[in-house]
């Protein structure tokens, strides 16, 4: 099996879907000639032509609203936001139109919005955000956050296949940092199935996206002291795999919920609250959360480092948790 970077897996996966299904097309700013800000669609316009790889004006509302309309006409649009941060400009269209259309009118809206998200390279307050929690609160949307090249490709195929609006958060800091084996043939990774990224019995970290790797680094470090921590990668937030999370909690009795986004009102609260409600009797320690502090994402390296949860932060929290 070939080793691909996370971004190659996305690119290959998208190309495969577009080859497979004429209805799939890509639209966004600079996705054509330029190949997208991160070059995910490099060469696509040559292969698929300018009407399946559409360079749009700088118009997030028209992009997402337009994708919705095209989907209603039977297409399978994939819309690219140049950075996930800019999805704020299309918030209304996702929340008001796409999320509620099927409930109201029984017409599915099979769109995928690709969202290069996350920090770690001094992108500052507007090029580093992880806005998945805000959307995870909106019934009607599905939220996907792959952590590995394998999942990036398989979840993208599932997202395109899914008859609902799917927000596909691709973490920029994983783009070229993470490599892994990715089958060449098409496959799907189903939504709502968490993945045990690292095994362990002494505690579990529930997380997703880039933090899967941060958690693993911390767990590997802790393993040197003989403590084995499971890292459970949710893969998708909506739907999220309550069963597997609760099973892990019941098994390990100690849980840390970790995310890169800010703490208050983040999706970690939902997970922690669910655990507290459903596995109360099985807990040997309070459900801990590690997340970014409640500030915009700062630009300057020492500030950004303090903002984004680091392996040391997770390690420290795990030590506390295990010692509880």
């Amino acid at each position, binding site marked *: 099996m070939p080793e691909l970077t996370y971004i190659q897996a996305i690119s290959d996966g998208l190309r495969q879907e577009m080859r497979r299904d004429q209805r799939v097309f890509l639209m966004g700013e600079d996705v054509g000639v330029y190949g997208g800000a991160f070059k995910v669609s490099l060469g696509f316009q040559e292969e698929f032509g300018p009407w399946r790889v559409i360079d*749009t004006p700088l118009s997030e509302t028209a992009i997402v609203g337009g994708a919705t*309309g095209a989907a209603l006409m039977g297409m399978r649009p994939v819309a690219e936001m140049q950075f996930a941060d800019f999805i704020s400009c299309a918030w209304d269209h996702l929340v008001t139109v796409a999320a509620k259309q099927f409930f109201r009118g029984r017409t599915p809206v099979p769109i995928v919005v690709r969202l290069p998200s996350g920090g770690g390279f001094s992108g500052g307050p507007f090029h580093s955000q992880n806005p998945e929690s805000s959307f995870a609160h909106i019934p009607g949307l599905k939220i996907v956050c792959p952590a590995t090249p394998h999942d990036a490709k398989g979840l993208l195929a599932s997202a395109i296949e899914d008859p609902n609006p799917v927000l596909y958060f691709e973490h920029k800091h994983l783009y070229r940092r993470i490599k892994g084996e990715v089958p060449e043939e098409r496959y799907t990774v189903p939504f709502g199935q968490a993945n045990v990224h690292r095994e362990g019995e002494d505690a579990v970290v529930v997380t997703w996206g880039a933090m899967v790797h941060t958690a693993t680094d911390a767990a590997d470090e802790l393993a040197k002291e003989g403590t084995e921590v499971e890292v459970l990668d949710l893969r998708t937030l909506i739907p999220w795999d309550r069963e597997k999370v609760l099973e892990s909690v019941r098994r390990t009795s100690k849980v840390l919920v970790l995310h890169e986004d800010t703490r208050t009102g983040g999706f970690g609260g939902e997970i922690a609250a669910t655990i507290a409600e459903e596995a109360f009797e099985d807990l040997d320690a309070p459900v801990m959360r590690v997340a970014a502090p409640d500030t915009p994402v700062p630009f300057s390296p020492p500030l950004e480092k303090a903002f984004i949860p680091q392996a040391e932060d997770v390690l420290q929290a795990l030590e506390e948790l295990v010692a509880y």
Partner: protein
Amino acid sequence: MAVREAEPVGSLQEVKEAGLDREDLLGMYRAMLITRGIEERGHILYKQGKIPGSFYTGRGNEAAAVGVGSAMGPNDVGTPLHRDMGVHITRGVDPWRIFAQYMGREGGPTRGRDGNVHMAMPELGLHPMVSHLPAMLPVATGMALAFKIRNEKRVALGWFGEGAAARGDAHEAMNMAGVRQLPIVFVCDNNQWAYSTPTYLSFPVEHIADRAAAYGFDGVVVDGTDVLAVYREAKRAIEKAREGGGPTLLECLTLRMEGHAVHDDAFYVPKEMFEQWAAQDPIERFRSWLRDHAELTDEEDDEIASSVKRTLNSALEQADESPLPDPAGLEAGVYAAPEDLDTPHHK
């Protein structure tokens, strides 16, 4: 002025050239009567406490809605708004479904999930509006984009009010449609008020259609009380779009003849304005035209009126028989399953 102000329609000859025979004309007339009838009855139902929530009508807009709706081709699509009941009727929605919608019954197109005119039947090429105005314009643009990508000779119609034209959605949709020369017609229901807001507080130019120039396409203003002129202009715009000529902004000038919704007595609209526009009531106007140009007789007119009445009576009955939705099914309806995609209109 950049926009074209359309002439009123005169003779039957002219109308025939536009492709309408007498039956078509009577069909349009009937659609206008049903449209108004539904809304009048809805009003009564509302006062009787049979319609929950709020209630909106399009009184004064019947010609604009029916005129544009009639000009659409069978495979064209659109996203009509709260003043555009006539579009639903023209496209063939059975009136009982609308009463059922009003009353929150299972038989309404949204099965009680949404209320009032927030509904449409996709199998007839119409897609339901959201409250947030004019959010359906970018959606309509996307529909047109799909046709362009697939090289289909279909046209999308996106409706918007002159008030909602102030929102960014209108701009992004029109700009993108202009850049890509998409097969779309933007239909502005300019009824001169946005809730209590007069046009001069909504936009600083004479016509909303003046904006078309900023997007590189044509703007047309038509008297929205003249169903035949609306039809002619809509047809032109639609066929132009179908043939690759790009978008048109068609502004239908009317007056909103009632308050914004039932709770609003429209105290802020000058009385003379109502009087002036009442004198050109679209239905009365079309009726005289039919008498003068298409030999509509009293008997025929009465017969149409009673057939409309019968239709509405039985529609009401049928709607009333439709059950209220069962809460047990609420949560299951949020996400679509793959098989929900297997519909003819969603190809």
